């Protein structure tokens, strides 16, 4: 029992490590995270510079103004989160991932954990920069003690709530996007769904004149509800209280992750997403990932050491573009195999011949789909 739980923990740890390596080595990640920070800070500073408070009681909310950038940077966060899994589907990497880590819940949990960590870090920097910008700019725009405003400070309870809540907001948007992308397996569709969910509720609410309808729409919309966390004044006029609003967004994120996780477990990872099954795939010899060797895998029993030369790789239906047999490009398990391929559960560690877990390069032949026309096959 303890061994099993140890194995579970070990697989989680390795999944985390793998996901971290994948995300770290994908070139888009660092740019997207930098864009989150830069866009948040820039738009927040611009919003702070554009607003004025000519007299006392001007009804402005300085904390919310200085956190305006979140409304744009959530798009970047959504793109980042969608690419975490959508990128794997688009390159076919997902099959390698699932071959190496067949516990799909673990894979998704690891992705969510790594994503949460990254967005927490970037969001914290972005929000700190925004609050600092607001603290420096707003007093010059009329938000002075004479007009009833103290400089923004994280020591102030509501401001701290707004700032910390904005970071959590970004994290929840990321998880919502991850869940949606896992469910639809297609980056573009996932981005469309997530941004549609975020922006359509406020647009519909704006053209609805009935105050009850409007209030309900604002209460259930993930963006309008979640951004309630940024309000520090006029809490009474909000459609729902700040933490309840963040709770609504958390419910959306949980629902998306649950739906995505269930579909992830139930569905074939290849269905509809692999190059071989898509209608737009040019006709060419079909390549399948296939376990070579190892008969009797499904029989339960003591772990067996695989025969020498056993490897996971391309079935040699055709030689590679360079003429080499494809089996030599596979991954080699170092540890015993228990059941394969019925539930796909090798517990061993796989090493990658390329040593890098970039989305497109690990173990799959790197040049198969991404370079120029191949005449040989």
């Amino acid at each position, binding site marked *: 029992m303890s061994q099993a739980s140890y194995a579970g923990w070990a697989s989680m740890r390795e999944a985390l490590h793998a996901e971290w390596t994948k995300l770290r080595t994908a070139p888009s990640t660092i740019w997207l995270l930098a864009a989150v920070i830069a866009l948040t800070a820039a738009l927040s500073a611009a919003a702070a510079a554009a607003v004025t408070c000519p007299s006392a009681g001007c009804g402005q909310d300085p904390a919310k103004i200085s956190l305006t950038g979140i*409304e744009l940077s959530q798009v970047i966060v959504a793109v980042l989160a969608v690419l975490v899994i959508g990128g794997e589907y688009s390159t076919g990497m997902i099959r390698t991932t699932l071959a190496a880590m067949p516990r799909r819940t673990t894979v998704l949990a690891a992705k969510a954990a790594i994503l949460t960590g990254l967005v927490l870090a970037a969001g914290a920097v972005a929000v700190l920069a925004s609050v600092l910008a607001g603290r420096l700019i707003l007093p010059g725009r009329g938000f002075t003690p004479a007009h009833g405003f103290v400089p923004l400070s994280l020591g102030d309870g509501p401001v701290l709530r707004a700032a910390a809540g904005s970071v959590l907001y970004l994290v929840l948007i990321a998880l919502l996007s991850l869940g949606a992308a896992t469910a639809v397996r297609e980056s*573009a569709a996932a*981005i*469309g769904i997530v941004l549609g969910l975020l922006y*359509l509720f406020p*647009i*519909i609410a*704006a053209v609805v004149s009935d105050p009850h309808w409007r209030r309900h729409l604002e209460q259930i919309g993930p963006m309008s509800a979640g951004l309630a966390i940024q309000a520090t004044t006029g809490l009474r*006029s909000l459609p729902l209280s700040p933490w309840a609003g963040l709770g609504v967004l958390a419910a959306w994120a949980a629902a998306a992750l649950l739906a995505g996780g269930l579909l992830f477990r139930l569905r074939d990872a290849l269905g509809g997403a692999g190059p071989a099954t898509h209608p737009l795939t040019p006709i060419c010899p079909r390549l399948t990932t296939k376990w070579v060797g190892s008969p009797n895998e499904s029989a339960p029993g003591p772990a067996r050491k695989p025969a020498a030369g056993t490897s996971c790789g391309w079935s040699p239906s055709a030689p590679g573009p360079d003429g080499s047999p494809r089996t030599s490009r596979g991954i080699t398990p170092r540890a015993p195999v228990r059941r394969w391929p019925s539930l796909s559960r090798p517990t061993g560690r796989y090493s990658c011949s390329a040593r890098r877990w970039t989305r497109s390069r690990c173990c799959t032949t790197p040049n198969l789909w991404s370079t120029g026309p191949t005449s040989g096959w």
Partner: protein
Amino acid sequence: MTTSTLTPYRSDLRPGRDGFAQLLRAEWTKFTTVRGWVIGVLAAALVTVLLGLVSTAGNNATCNGQICRTTVPVGPGGEAVTDIFSFVHRPLDGNGSITVRVTSLTGGNTSPHPGGQGTAGLQPWSKAGIIIKENTRQGSAYAAIMVTGSHGVRMQYNYTGDTAGPAGTVSTASPRWLRLARSGDTITGYASANGAAWTTVGTARLAGLSRAVQAGLFATSPAYTQVTSQRLLSTSSTSGGTLATAVFDHVSLHGSWPRGAWRASLIGGGPNAQYPVQIQRGWYHQAGGRFTVSGSGDIAPAVAGAAGPGQTIERGLAGAWAGLIVLAVVGAMFITAEYRRGLIRTTLAASPRRGRVLAAKAIVIGAVAFVAGLAGAATAVPLGQRLLRDNGNIVYPVTPLTEVRIVVGTAALLAVAAVLALGLGAIVRRSAAAVAAIIVVIVVPYILAVPHVLSVGTAQWLLRITPAAGFAIQQSIPQYPQVSNDYTPSNGYYPLAPWAGFAVLCCYAAVALGLAIVLLRRRDA
């Protein structure tokens, strides 16, 4: 010498198999064989209708707990109008003129101002002066010359006409003399500071004006709207009626005025009208040659939003946003999926003229999006209109041509947006980035254009220079400078004229497609 009988080889196949029609057919086949895209386009039409219905269903007008059965008067030009004012009048049978001196125009609220701070008082477009009107029915033709709260002397006619006269506010120290002269169906307005030197302010031709009309003094003042708090896309405001009181003297009549006394009528007052308490107490007073008239309401075209009583027909098209997002996803994937699956190499091998490939793709996806948008809009607009009416809303009448422009324009908007997505997708070759970019450039300016999120000027510029300008094609009723209102996109107003806004979007699509063709030619696939 014998000539060679060797003839060169000729294929038996018919020539012309690589024409543009073949290319179109190939792209059409690609589109129809991807189930997700076909479903996506059908879904775009469906969400356009469904979300449109949801947004119209949320507009209920209740009167005393029941669905309203109100109607809106329609002016001579066919547009919905507001026609509520206090009228002190006599019949004018033929040609003639009326001259008065206005010595004061003051204002106040008809209800206690909530919050206690700030006063509404006299509005910029509070107005009082002299008017010649077909009859006392709402919506009948008129021409009037008036002093206003802060827009000087104006000559207005038939609700939409508005000509500026001498500026400045009126007071006992600087009174204004006003004159209206009728000759046939032409009415000319004059203004003067001293009653001696007159300037012509404007001339109005009221086609088909009866011989016997009503003419006299009027006063009215529109409701005020004050923003109390603003959140993203949701601005709360307080509004209330205001009252304008004008003092007239030196009233002189020339021409064919039948004998009789001045009559006082509240125009727009039906049997159930709720008058402000000040009006109920008495709004007309005459002593010697001095008339004091108080009024509340407006003589102006009706506008959408807080300042108007009704809804515009494009309310039913709120779902076009959802349709646009879905079609942008399909449009971007129409090219990025080829890169992802490697089909682009086959495509370009089969048709090496790369520009034509992209042109064929644009035509196919544009046509598909247009048909989907047309189906969605042509269903959503009449259904939404009906739903709005059933819920007791006044729907502003528009000409059939405008309605066609809105429906076809929405379809064209979705088609051009899909082409723009295709161009962006071909440029960046990544579907997620292309879709996120197009949603941000179209949706975010619209959301930021709500007043007080950005300054009004910035927001208006965003709606002029970003692709979001294309939604101007949905605007059904024009913006009137002589009516104070929140002229924002959520109320259906855009800074650019309908076709100009659409042209901005088309420019973006053309530039994106052109850049995509250049890059496709230059880059290795």
